[in-house]
């Protein structure tokens, strides 16, 4: 930790994961005089440090890196450009006027002020309670990420025989990791009729290790008073009700949950940032500015990405805009065009776009589809009946983010638009 913490910074970044690191570096490069990054862990890098598998950086570096290696490149850059950081410190409060209340084992309790703030708290895992799993509450029911920390950071294996509920990426990654550690992964159950994580993880983590994935299956009941002894699996119908007669007792000592991630926005809420009930993250513009002027949001805190590369890119945009805000400290009154989720689109980020941005840079609209489409699709941006831009994808799956980029050529159409409605439809 930097012993000479100041009381005021151009930009304060809350969270030193990939989103926060990218935002901090970019803010500094874009001219912010001083940038402070605050993180609750002992090291920079966030959750990447426990993601020791490969698959990071293919987009950003055209290289296949592990999580820690990917993080290290940004940590190196952060130190090179002179980012100040405060580790082992928790932000307790952010006020609407940019006061940040922090407590740490070192550095004590302090209030620091940021001309601009970047929220980069990432996301948390959905828990057993949120999917309301019946049964008692023994030891041995963990989220996949908690198990990942135990295995990869602390060096302990939390079970011998596992069942994994949910085909999220961390669950599949852990299925492979635990197999390497000599544990047996009995089954991966997914309540949806499709994979919720990346297809590549299904191939590399489950198929390659003969781990069975059962779609349209869930855990009907946990069994075991002190420690998990078994789970009762069951098939579900179209309404997610378990099908009588399909029950199967699977003996196991650990149930891992990989049932989704939720952007971590309790601090944002305290600060008064408006949140989108669908993403769970702040409403943002194309520069990732939230409803509060000067408060930006970077990465998984906005919506959950499936690739770290996109988190980095979002962090860079947020950091650059935060630096610009800090330097002129002005609220530009801009006319922004709202985006909207059309056919087979669950949500679109950003929620609004300032057309003037297109005169200097591209704007990526990011979305998740509602239903999987396994044939070629078109991603289309419409204003009413007017097509603004479109592109073709080989398929669209809920587990994989879909995007389309607005470019300089779209400026006129966007400027005149009432709404930028995005839809994903079968290619005729």
């Amino acid at each position, binding site marked *: 930790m930097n012993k000479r913490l100041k009381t005021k910074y151009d930009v304060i970044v809350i969270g030193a994961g990939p989103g926060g690191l990218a935002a901090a570096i970019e803010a500094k490069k874009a001219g912010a005089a001083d940038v402070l990054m605050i993180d609750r862990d002992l090291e920079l890098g966030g959750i990447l440090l426990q993601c020791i598998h490969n698959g990071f950086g293919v987009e950003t570096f055209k290289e296949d890196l592990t999580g820690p290696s990917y993080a290290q490149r940004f940590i190196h850059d952060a130190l090179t450009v002179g980012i100040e950081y405060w580790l082992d410190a928790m932000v307790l409060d952010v006020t609407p006027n940019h006061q940040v209340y922090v*407590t*740490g*084992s070192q550095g004590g309790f302090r209030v620091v002020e940021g001309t601009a703030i970047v929220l980069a708290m990432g996301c948390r895992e959905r828990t057993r309670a949120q999917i309301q799993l*019946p049964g008692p509450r023994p030891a041995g029911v963990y989220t996949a990420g*908690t198990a990942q920390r135990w295995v990869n950071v602390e060096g*302990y294996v939390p079970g011998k025989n596992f069942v994994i509920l949910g085909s999220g990426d961390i669950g599949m990654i852990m299925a492979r990791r635990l197999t390497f550690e000599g544990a047996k992964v009995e089954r991966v159950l997914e309540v949806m009729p499709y994979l919720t994580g990346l297809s590549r993880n299904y191939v590399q983590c489950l198929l390659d290790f003969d781990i069975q994935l059962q779609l349209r299956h869930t855990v009907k009941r946990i069994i075991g008073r002190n420690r998990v002894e078994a789970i009762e699996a069951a098939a579900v119908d179209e309404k997610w009700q378990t099908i009588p007669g399909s029950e199967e007792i699977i003996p196991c000592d650990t149930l891992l949950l990989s049932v989704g991630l939720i952007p971590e926005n309790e601090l944002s809420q305290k600060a008064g940032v408006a949140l989108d009930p669908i993403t769970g993250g702040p409403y943002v513009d194309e520069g990732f500015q939230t409803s509060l002027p000067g408060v930006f949001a970077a990465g998984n805190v906005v919506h959950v990405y499936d690739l770290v590369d996109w988190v980095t890119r979002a962090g860079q945009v947020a950091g650059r805009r935060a630096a610009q805000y800090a330097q002129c400290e002005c609220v530009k009154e801009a006319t922004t065009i709202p985006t909207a989720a059309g056919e087979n689109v669950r949500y679109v980020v950003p929620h609004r776009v300032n057309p003037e941005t297109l005169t200097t840079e591209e704007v990526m609209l990011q979305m998740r589809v509602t239903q999987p489409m396994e044939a070629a699709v078109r991603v289309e941006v419409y204003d009413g009946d007017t097509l603004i831009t479109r592109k073709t994808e080989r398929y669209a799956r809920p587990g994989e983010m879909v995007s389309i980029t607005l470019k300089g050529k779209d400026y006129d159409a966007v400027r005149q638009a009432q709404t930028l409605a995005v839809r994903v439809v079968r290619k005729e």
Partner: protein
Amino acid sequence: MKKHYEVIIIGAGIVGATTARALSRYALDILWIEKEADICTGATAANSAIVHGGYDAVPGSLKAAMNVQGNALWDQLAAELHFAFARSGTYVAAIGADEACALEDLKARGDLNGVPTEIISGAEMRRREPQINPAVSTALYCPSGGLCDPWGATIAAAENAVMNGVELRLNTAFEDFLWDPDAPRRIVGIHTNQGDFYGRWVVNAAGLYADAVMHQAGLRPEFTITARRGEYYVMDRAKVQIGTVLFPVPSKISKGILVTTTLHGNTLVGPNAEEIANKEDVDVTAKGMREIWDGAQKLVPGLNRRDVIAVFAGLRPAGNAPCLTPGVDYHKDFIIEIPESVQGLVNLGGMESPALSAAPAIAQRVVELLADAGMTLQEKPTWNPLRPARPVFRHLTHEQQAALVAQDPRYGRVICRCESVTEGEIVAEIHAPIPATTYDALKRRTWLGTGRCMGGFDMPRVVDILARELGVAPLTISKKGRGSEFLFRRTKEAS
């Protein structure tokens, strides 16, 4: 040499704890046993956390008397022991004419029990709780009803008992009584899984298992305790804020599914009431969860199931003891007695709701019974009724937090992010008079892991701190005692 205690107490729920504390005032050697790895793990651990006014207990029953007397003792208890308690008042909300009549009956019962209540209009109810169902037409307000932290109350009372000399033994399960070979029906101690302990008096505060304990003494063979399971939802306090305690009009078997605030700020929804055979079965069920959700919607239709952060179930020890008051036809009363047929037993049973509310009075009654039986109760000059509070980081102002962190940097390290529980608080509980040695023990004392991430973030860190502070390997750290260890082995040790 065998140690002889004056009193042996079986069971460390709220009744055992208040009794241990009440007896710790006197010059007595007291042994207190609990079969689990921590105190406060049975019925006391999972309930609605309400200190009932006592308007709905059957007039003339021991339950009614104990509830009303117990209710009045909570202010002093909370002040001396420093746990969370608030005399918030409670409401029973009625929809339609039939339910309104039921409120009149409840009010009349309250009058008989000496508990003042007031009937308020639907409009006034909506003014006091804007989120309530607009169809609510009238409500019964009981100003003496309140809220407590049952974990905090039990742990504080227990700790005060231990501070005043009570010897607490955990992981010690009662198995049988020891009898005087020379005097039949005279208890001289107990046999446990940890050996024999000798004592002049044994107090049966075994909660769900009180029937089994008294049957071992040959008492009340017809008395049985049925576990009545109740399931609950805990709502995210960042999303839902109900400011009051709302009951529906009660049914014959329970007070119904309530929607209540807690002193922790989280809204609690539940319980249903399902009689089950297994006294350890705290499963939550799909059916139960549907039932409590439907019940809750009746009181507060605007609740959103997405805001549920925890589900749990608790067991009420429902007894079948007849009320001893002549003319009162009631068969679910408390048992608080020194039976004539055996010597050396203070027998308690049927400690379902409102046992939490009544516990301070039940403890007093136990002391009175022992005095009447000839026990010499000499107050110890060293007796200290005060149990000092320990710092709770999240309850402090920013200025106080700053001062605490400056004094001890461990209070600056937040381990449970949702509930802002610091390492300082965790370490203090591990080294408290009743040491917290499991994850769940720390949870009940500090509320760590009770927030929206349900311990996903803190669990590895807490295991680490427990291992460090107890000087043991992380592999031995458990959720709730032997058999519930979190971890199996180190990595790279696969055989």
